[in-house]
């Protein structure tokens, strides 16, 4: 027996757990479920290209029936995201329904709806965890990526949670070139609010593809992240994001060190489509839909895409690399959206193989995100990337009707 945070176990008679995970599980362990594509923000690196609600999003009744199914499959908790999930008018109702169904919820939010009253109600609810997104430890760094006002909104939400006595909520940071130097400051913010810091990798998915080359950490910063995690990793969550950095040292970062896509991880998007992982919203990784007969369980158990992901990664050219056992070839989605072969190196391969392959690629041949819900409109040249003027009323903020 081991806990997920103490992998790998040594000296056991059974094969390492990670080997057993490669063949897939009866149900996911880490299920991300995005409840809407609508978002009040327009973060430059949004994985889901969120902004506008999709008219085909699951109805309240359909959402409840997915929760029923998750309960039957014993999916003990889900990571709810979006878009900004709290803009769904039925958000709190669905949250209560999931919790009452013994499907715990951790939801990601930019802080929009977390006023003092709501924070108190959340603090009093079991099986709920909250993750507030913050991509800069200063207003300047955060708002350059997440938009004007988003830093203050997030900090207000954290203050409300802390004052309500909500202990150990999560502060979730996507690591960029501009915030790697702020790691200690992020940890201090988490301490100040009695929260836990979570740092994850910037992926070239969704709108992230547009900014990845400018925003992803430099090689030197990757080393800083690795060593910072070696020193602080016991207190910091990473969603297993940084296993591609394991080849930088002899101390493996805590986690499974495995691409869990389709094995222990998957994504249900707001229209009910099931993808191999939250970073791969693209037809190439779409396994099916919860709306088909058999629902989510049928997709999880029988989708041909998942069956193929549950076989051994051939490793391709990486197989002969001395670091392959540490990094396992890295992140599938990061490779796909930067145009690298799925059995090739990660774009942030610490040996530099990814960077050298990318430099030889024709940018015109990159896979294009095909599920774009960004709000359309003209970017206003104020140096604030998130300010846009809508061209149609339905492209305006999803809050316009409710504010």
């Amino acid at each position, binding site marked *: *027996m081991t806990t*997920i945070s103490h992998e790998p176990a040594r000296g*056991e008679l059974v094969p390492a*757990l990670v080997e057993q995970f490669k063949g897939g599980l009866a*149900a996911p362990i880490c299920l991300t479920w995005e409840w809407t594509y609508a978002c009040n923000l327009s973060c430059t690196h949004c994985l889901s290209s969120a902004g506008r609600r999709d008219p085909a999003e699951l109805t309240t009744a359909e959402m409840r029936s997915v929760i029923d199914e998750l309960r039957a499959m014993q999916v003990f908790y889900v990571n709810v995201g979006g878009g900004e999930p709290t803009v769904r008018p039925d958000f709190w109702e669905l949250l209560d329904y999931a919790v009452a169904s013994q499907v*715990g919820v951790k939801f990601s939010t930019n802080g929009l709806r977390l006023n003092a009253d709501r924070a108190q109600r959340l603090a009093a609810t079991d099986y709920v965890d909250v993750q507030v997104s913050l991509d800069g430890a200063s207003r300047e760094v955060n708002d350059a990526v997440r938009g004007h006002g988003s830093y203050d909104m997030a900090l207000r939400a954290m203050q409300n949670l802390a004052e309500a006595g909500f202990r150990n909520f999560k502060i979730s940071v996507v690591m960029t070139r501009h915030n790697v130097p702020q790691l200690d400051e992020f940890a201090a913010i988490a301490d100040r609010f009695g929260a836990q810091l979570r740092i994850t990798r910037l992926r070239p998915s969704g709108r992230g593809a547009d900014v990845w080359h400018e925003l992803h950490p430099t090689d030197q910063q990757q080393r800083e992240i690795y060593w910072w995690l070696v020193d602080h990793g016991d207190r910091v969550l990473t969603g297993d994001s940084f296993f591609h950095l394991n080849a930088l040292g002899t101390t493996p970062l805590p986690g499974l060190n495995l691409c869990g896509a389709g094995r222990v991880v998957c994504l249900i998007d707001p229209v009910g489509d099931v993808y191999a992982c939250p970073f791969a919203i693209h037809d190439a990784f779409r396994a099916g839909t919860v709306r088909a007969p058999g629902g989510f369980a049928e997709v999880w158990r029988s989708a041909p895409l998942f069956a193929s992901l549950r076989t051994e990664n051939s490793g391709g050219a990486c197989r002969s690399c001395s670091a392959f056992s540490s990094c396992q070839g890295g992140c599938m989605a990061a490779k796909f959206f930067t145009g690298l072969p799925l059995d090739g190196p990660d774009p942030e391969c610490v040996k530099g193989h990814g960077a050298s392959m990318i430099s030889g690629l024709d940018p015109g041949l990159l896979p294009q995100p095909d599920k774009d819900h960004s709000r359309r409109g003209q970017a206003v040249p104020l140096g604030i990337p998130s300010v846009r003027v809508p061209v149609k009323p339905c492209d305006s903020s999803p809050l316009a009707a409710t504010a």
Partner: protein
Amino acid sequence: MTAPFELDLGYRLNPDVALRREPFGALAYHFGTRRLSFLKAPDLVELVCGLGAYRCVSDALAAVPDRRRGVYLRALAALAAADMIVPQREGAS
């Protein structure tokens, strides 16, 4: 608070813990602590599920092959430390 694991005490699966059967064994989820643990062998799952029927841990382990007893003992101790299994007298109804 969890007490030290004792071989001559009877244990049982914590009522707050749900087991999900998996090809490798089972996944254990504690609804109170929100911790996830893995029971990495089908035999261990049977052992844990049947634990409540034995007067003490030593009795429960008597049926386990010698070469696996040490591993399972450590696994049970870890499960007790994580509050996944609890002494039978605790909260018995």
